[in-house]
C-alpha cells in the first residue's frame, strides 16, 4: 500500500533533513510531479514545472549526487582547459528559490498501477506524473572482457566525476611513447562527437607532455559525428599521432583483457598503456525497472515525451527513443521544456504551446579551435524529426574557430544556469 500524502511528505522532509531552505507550504491537494535524475533533462524539467505552474504543482527531484558534475565539457577537463570544480553544480537554488523538494537518494522501483516510486532509503513517493531522466547505463558484455568491475583498469569516463579524474591521471602518468587506446561505442550513444573530442583533448595533452605517444581508436562504426572536421583538425594539430581502426579492419570484433592491458582486434592483440572503454549504452536502469523500455531505450511520444507504454510517465534525454535528436545535454534540456509545458497544462491548467526542439553540440579540437553542429526539430506522429541543420566547415579561419569555442563557454554558463537556476 502506498503511503498517503501526509505520510509521504513527512518522510520526504525527513530524508532531506533540514536542507537550508524552509519547506514551502503546500496544499495537500496539489498535484505531484516526481522527477528522477538531476541532469540536463531532469533538473530542467523540475525547474520548469515549478515555475510554469507558479507553485501549483509540487515537484520532487530525486538525484543521488549532492554535487553534480556535467558530462558535457568533461572532455575539456581531460584536455586541461577546465578544472573539475568548474563542472560541479549543486541543487541548493532549485530548493531555495524554486521550492523544489530535492531528495538525494536512488530510485529503485516504480509501481505504475499505484503510481509510486520507491527509493533506496525506504521512502515511497506517489506521483501524478513521473519524469524519468536517468541518463545512460552500459550494456553488459558489449565489450567482452570489460565490466564495471574493471572500470579502474580501463575507465569509461562516460559519466563525469571520479572516472574522468582517473582517466586524466592515467594519461598524465602514461609512459613516454606509450599508447592510449579508445574502444568507441556503437550507435546510438550519449554525445555523438564526445569520443572524438576526447581523442582531441588527450592528443592536446600528450602533445605537450608526451609527444611520442600514440592514440589508437578502435571504432565499430563506419563513420562518426563531425568526422571530416575532426580528421582535418587531427591532421593539422596532431600529425601522425592518431590512428583509427574501423569495421573494415575488425573493429566490430573486439575484446579486452584489463589485467594484461591488451585489446584483441579480430585476433590481433595490441598491448596498450591506457585503455578508455566506452561500452554500448542503454537507458538508465530505472527505465527498465519501470517496464517502459523496448530494447535498450524507452520509446516516447514526440509531442510531450510521454512513454508509449504509460502516459503518466515521461522520459527525457539520453534514455528516450524519440527520433532524430542526438543524445546530448542540449537535447535533454530542450525536451524537458516541452515536457514541462505539457505537464503544467495537464495538471494545473496552464496553456499548452506547440512542441519545438533544438540542439547544438560544440566540440574543441585544440586551443581555440572549436566546431559545432546543430539542428531544429519538430514533433510528428513518427517521432521527433529534423527540420533544418548546420555544421562548421573545414577551412574556416582561426577567428571563426575561436569565436565558436568562446560561444561554447557562453553556452555552458547559460545551460547550467537554466538547469540549476543559478550562475
Amino acid at each position, binding site marked *: 500500500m502506498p503511503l498517503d500524502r501526509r505520510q509521504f511528505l513527512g518522510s520526504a522532509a525527513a530524508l532531506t533533513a533540514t536542507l537550508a531552505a524552509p519547506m514551502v507550504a503546500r496544499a495537500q491537494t496539489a498535484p505531484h510531479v516526481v522527477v528522477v535524475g538531476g541532469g540536463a533533462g531532469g533538473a530542467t524539467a523540475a525547474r*520548469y514545472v515549478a515555475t510554469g505552474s507558479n507553485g501549483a504543482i509540487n515537484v520532487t527531484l530525486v538525484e543521488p549526487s549532492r554535487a553534480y558534475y556535467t558530462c558535457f565539457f568533461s572532455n575539456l577537463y581531460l584536455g586541461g582547459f577546465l578544472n573539475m570544480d568548474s563542472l560541479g553544480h549543486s541543487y541548493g537554488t532549485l530548493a531555495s528559490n524554486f521550492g523544489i523538494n530535492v531528495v538525494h537518494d536512488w530510485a529503485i522501483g516504480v509501481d505504475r498501477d499505484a503510481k509510486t516510486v520507491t527509493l533506496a532509503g525506504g521512502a515511497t513517493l506517489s506521483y501524478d506524473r513521473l519524469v524519468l531522466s536517468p541518463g545512460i547505463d552500459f550494456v553488459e558484455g558489449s565489450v567482452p572482457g570489460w565490466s564495471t568491475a574493471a572500470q579502474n583498469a580501463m575507465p569509461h569516463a562516460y559519466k563525469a566525476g571520479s572516472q574522468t579524474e582517473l582517466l586524466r591521471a592515467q594519461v598524465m602518468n602514461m609512459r613516454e611513447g606509450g599508447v592510449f587506446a579508445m574502444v568507441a561505442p556503437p550507435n546510438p550513444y550519449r554525445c555523438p562527437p564526445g569520443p572524438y573530442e576526447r581523442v582531441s583533448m588527450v592528443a592536446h595533452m600528450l602533445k605537450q607532455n608526451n609527444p611520442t605517444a600514440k592514440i589508437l581508436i578502435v571504432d565499430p562504426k563506419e563513420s562518426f559525428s563531425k568526422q571530416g572536421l575532426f580528421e582535418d583538425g587531427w591532421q593539422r594539430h596532431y600529425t601522425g599521432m592518431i590512428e583509427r581502426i574501423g569495421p573494415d579492419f575488425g573493429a566490430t570484433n573486439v575484446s579486452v583483457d584489463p589485467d594484461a592491458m591488451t585489446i584483441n582486434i579480430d585476433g590481433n592483440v595490441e598491448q596498450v598503456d591506457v585503455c578508455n572503454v566506452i561500452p554500448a549504452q542503454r537507458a538508465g536502469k530505472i527505465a527498465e525497472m519501470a517496464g517502459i523500455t523496448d530494447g535498450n531505450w524507452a520509446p516516447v511520444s514526440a509531442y510531450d515525451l510521454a512513454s508509449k507504454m504509460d502516459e503518466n510517465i515521461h522520459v527525457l534525454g539520453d534514455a528516450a527513443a524519440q527520433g532524430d535528436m542526438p543524445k546530448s545535454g*542540449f537535447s535533454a*534540456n*530542450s525536451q524537458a*521544456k516541452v515536457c514541462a*509545458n505539457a505537464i503544467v497544462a495537464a495538471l494545473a491548467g496552464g*496553456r499548452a*504551446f506547440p512542441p*519545438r526542439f*533544438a540542439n*547544438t553540440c560544440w566540440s574543441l579540437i585544440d586551443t581555440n579551435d572549436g566546431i*559545432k553542429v*546543430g*539542428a*531544429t526539430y519538430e514533433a510528428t506522429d513518427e517521432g521527433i524529426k529534423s*527540420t*533544418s*541543420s*548546420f555544421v*562548421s566547415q573545414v577551412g574556416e579561419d582561426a*577567428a571563426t574557430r*575561436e*569565436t565558436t569555442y*568562446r*560561444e561554447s*563557454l*557562453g*553556452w555552458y*554558463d*547559460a*545551460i547550467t*544556469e*537554466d538547469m540549476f537556476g543559478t*550562475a
Partner: protein
Amino acid sequence: MRQIGQFGLAVAFLTALSSPALSEGDASRGEAAYRPCAACHMIGEGAINRVGPHLEGLMGRPVGGLSDYRYSDTLVNAGANGVTWTEDNLDRFLEDPQGYYRGTRMVFRGISDAQTRADLVAYIVQEAGSYDSAAAPSTGEVPPEIAAVLAIEGDFAYGEYLSSECTACHANQSGGDIPGIAGLAPSTFIHALMSYKIGEREHQVMTMLVNRLGDEEIAALAAYFATVE
C-alpha cells in the same frame, strides 16, 4: 561597481601618459574594419539603437550616455564619472573591450592591430561626428518589415514559453561570450532578430533558429524579454 568605474578612469589616465602617439588612421580603410560593428551599431545621421547603441554624435558623448539605451553598469558609471568618448579611449576600448570596461555587454573580441584600430577610429570620427547635447533624439526610419512586427502586441505567455529556447545559450547574467538579452527594449530585440531574417546579420545558430520564428513569435519574445531583469 563605482570602484570599477574609477579604476577604469585611473587606467585611462595612466596609459594616456605613458603610451606612444596613436597611429595615423585612414577612414577609407576603416570602413572595411567597421563592417562587423555594423551588425549591432548604426552610425551617421538618422542612426537608431539596435543591439548596440547608435554612434551618431559619439565623439565627446558621455560614455553610456544615451538615455534610451540600456547599458551595462560599468559604462553608466564611467559616464557618471565624467568620462566622454575620445579618439584615445575609443582606441583602447576597441583593443580589448572586456579588459577596458570589464562587464560591458558588447560581445567583441577586440582588435589587436594598432593600424586597423586607428583606421576604424578615423572612420568612426568621420561618420559619427561630435556630440551635441542639445540635439533632438534621433528619429531614424524603421524598416517596414520591422515596423510590422513592432505593431503586433506580443503574447507574453507564449513569449515566456518560447524564451526557454533562448535561455539554453543566453545566460540571464550576461557572460562575455554570448550576449545577454534580458531587458532589451522590444524595438531593439525585434530589430536584432529581424536582422538575421533579412540577412543583415549571419550566425549559424541564430539564423537557423530565427528562420523558424514567425512575426507573432518574435513579437511574443520581445514582449517577454523586455520584462526580464
